[in-house]
């Protein structure tokens, strides 16, 4: 009896030890340990998270971003005509997914609200196992989701976000931005404005009362003042404002001869419409024709403002009428699939998806720190806007910036803006510790691979 019990205990001990021994290698090859990063793809697929505004005021922009992401996935998996993969200077992508894994995706709705965007991104990371999050259409959202991805150990490839802060004071090692920023808009616009309107101008700024508005006003104001312009007044306007007439009429009473509308989306559509209604464009002040400037344009906004955009200068990250091979390849793919040309939001999102996939291929790993290394100071071409650098110091892309003007005689509903200047990248480049970008205190920190 006694022997039997001892024997049984020994059997149990031996079994437990054997089991633990057999299990040990499994533990160390599990997702949580071996690679040491969050959501390591272990099967034959890899999941990307597309977090875009599918409701709220930027829903149309978000829909275009989603179209671009779906096109990018199709191309990465070997479908369609390959789009910009054929013009991209890096040839690491083969059309067989990423590192041989078929690309799948989940989508989330940011609602253009930081808290909703974070909740949606968190769900994609925790429930869907997304290894990278991309998207956006608001700097507030981008900064919030970027911080979340940094904490979670996930790469964030920012979509449309134009505030200096995204790669300025709020920059993160796990976050990357292909889109341009407020400083670049100001630097590209100011010389064109001086050339067309002269250096002796008095500007009145109306500015959206949030992060993006502040950095855009600061960038345009400092750039134009450097050209000799005087800023006579700056007024913040609530984001919820729909009728700007009460803000426009004081402009009539001032001696300003230029109105700068640091507004985006519906705010810009309404403020520009109101400004034109009040005859600002027909005024002559200080012996000069009164002018209006819109620092950040998008085709979708131009469509909303209709004929009011005619002749008005602004900047844009990319435009479908660019004639380089990459842009044309993308326009052809997108236009054939959807029946209309892509917006700048669609372009930057498509490029970000391809750049991430390419970085993983070149790094040979989905590990965020490997991706960080592959993207830092990465130089590429063939994706529109000419040669581009992903600067290591702040993860901001540096490329040529377009200055556009509302077209006087559009030939179609898409033909609303014309490119008047492709500003060379050297003219819009700044030091990583520039005061508008958080100064010397702003740092990326270290990459976080997560789990």
């Amino acid at each position, binding site marked *: 009896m006694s022997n039997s019990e001892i024997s049984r205990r020994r059997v149990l001990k031996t079994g437990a030890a054997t089991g633990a021994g057999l299990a040990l290698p499994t533990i160390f090859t599990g997702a949580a340990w071996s690679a040491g990063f969050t959501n390591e793809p272990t099967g034959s697929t890899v999941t990307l998270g597309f977090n875009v505004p599918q409701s709220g005021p930027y829903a149309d922009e978000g829909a275009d971003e989603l179209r671009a992401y779906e096109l990018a996935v199709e191309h990465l998996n070997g479908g369609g005509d390959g789009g910009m993969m054929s013009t991209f200077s890096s040839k690491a992508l083969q059309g067989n997914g990423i590192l041989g894994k078929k690309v799948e995706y989940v989508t989330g709705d940011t609602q253009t609200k930081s808290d909703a965007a974070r909740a949606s991104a968190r769900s994609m990371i925790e429930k869907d196992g997304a290894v990278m999050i991309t998207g956006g259409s608001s700097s507030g959202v981008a900064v919030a989701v970027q911080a979340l991805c940094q904490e979670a150990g996930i790469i964030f490839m920012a979509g449309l976000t134009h505030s200096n802060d995204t790669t300025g004071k709020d920059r993160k090692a796990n976050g990357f931005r292909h889109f341009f920023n407020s400083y670049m808009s100001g630097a590209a616009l100011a010389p064109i404005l001086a050339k067309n309107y002269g250096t002796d101008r008095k500007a009145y700024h109306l500015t959206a009362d949030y992060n993006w508005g502040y950095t855009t006003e600061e960038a345009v104001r400092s750039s134009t003042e450097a050209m000799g312009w005087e800023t006579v007044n700056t007024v913040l306007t609530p984001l919820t404002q729909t009728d700007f007439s009460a803000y426009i009429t004081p402009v009539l009473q001032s001696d300003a001869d230029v109105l700068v509308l640091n507004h985006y989306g519906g705010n810009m559509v309404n403020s520009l*419409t109101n400004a034109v209604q009040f*005859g600002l464009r027909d005024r002559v002040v200080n012996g000069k024709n009164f002018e209006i400037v819109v620092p950040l344009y998008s085709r979708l906004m131009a469509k909303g403002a209709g004929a009011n955009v005619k002749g008005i200068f602004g900047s844009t990250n990319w435009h479908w009428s660019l004639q380089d091979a990459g842009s044309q390849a993308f326009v052809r793919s997108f236009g054939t699939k959807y029946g209309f040309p892509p917006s700048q939001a669609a372009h930057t999102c498509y490029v970000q998806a391809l750049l991430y996939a390419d970085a993983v291929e070149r790094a040979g790993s989905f590990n965020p720190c490997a991706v960080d290394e592959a993207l830092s100071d990465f130089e590429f071409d063939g994706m529109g806007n000419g040669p581009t650098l992903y600067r290591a110091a702040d993860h901001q892309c540096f490329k040529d910036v377009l200055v556009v003007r509302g077209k006087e005689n559009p030939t179609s509903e898409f033909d609303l803006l014309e490119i008047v200047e492709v500003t060379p990248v050297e003219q819009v480049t700044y030091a990583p510790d520039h005061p508008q970008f958080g100064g010397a205190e702003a740092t990326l920190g270290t990459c976080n691979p997560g789990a």
Partner: protein
Amino acid sequence: MDAIILQILNGLDKGSAYALIALGLTLIFGTLGVVNFAHGALFMLGAFCAVTLSQILTLSHEVIDDTRTDFLGNPLKVDVPYVYDIFGQAAGDTIIDWAVPLGILFAIPIMAGIGIAMERGLIKHFYKRPHADQILVTFGLAIVLQEIIKYFYGANPIPTPAPDAFIGSFDFGAMLGFDPGSIIYPYWRLVYFLFAMTIIAAVFAFLQFTTFGMVVRAGMADRETVGLLGINIDKRFTIMFAIAACVAGVAGVMYAPINSPNYHMGMDFLVLSFVVVVVGGMGSLPGAVAAGFLLGILESFASMSWAINLVPGINQIIIYLVAIIILLTRPRGLMGRKGVMED
């Protein structure tokens, strides 16, 4: 002085929209006793009637123009509106140009239909329910209507211009002897103000000088007694709901050129219009109109630079601040009647 005149004009213009929406709200509250939170959505639906008519008038068939190419390099497909085929290009262009004023004729039957359907299909079931229930159900309806519009028209604003004859602005200052260019006012905003005054006068005249209006006013004072006289007061109240919906609708149609219509414009106006109604006095038509213009003018002045510099954020709180002061000193509002909302 010219700045003050300009802000008063602005305020009258903004107040016109507030007053028209508040007028409809008060008509519904005064007749049916229903607090209709879907009224802003009716204003938005009116604006989209203008958009829809504009889109109908520009419905086109494609003609291939081999001499030009589209963005993909294919022969350009040119859209030719059907109205060109029917009326010729010159007349067709004029009809398209006048889409917004024509939108009033288009909107009236649609808004009346929507009003009747709303009242008969939903609102009547809440007559005897607490105001909180009415607010919840009508607010829910407003969200449903808003989402339907977003589904079909998208989230971006849709430019809906005024006729060419009313585009631009005129020198109001020169007319009054001020420096030329000091008071510039857009033609269409003046049209909107005059339109609002006409609608307000028409509604008052209708209620004051017609038999129908007299019965409705009697019904508003004592519904049961009017019913005992053998008058179908419910039918008349349904018609009043339809009229209120039409007022909101045509207000939205004419507002479309001022700010491009978008799906949430109703919500933007709703809360402010309710404040207008409360400040004017619940159930008081003259109160709603007077408060609409008063708060519109105050809001305009509060948006001026000196006011914002003096009290930062005053432009965003002025209406609520004034509402608090008026309700503290006159709990029934400016022209409120005793007993209304006091049960």
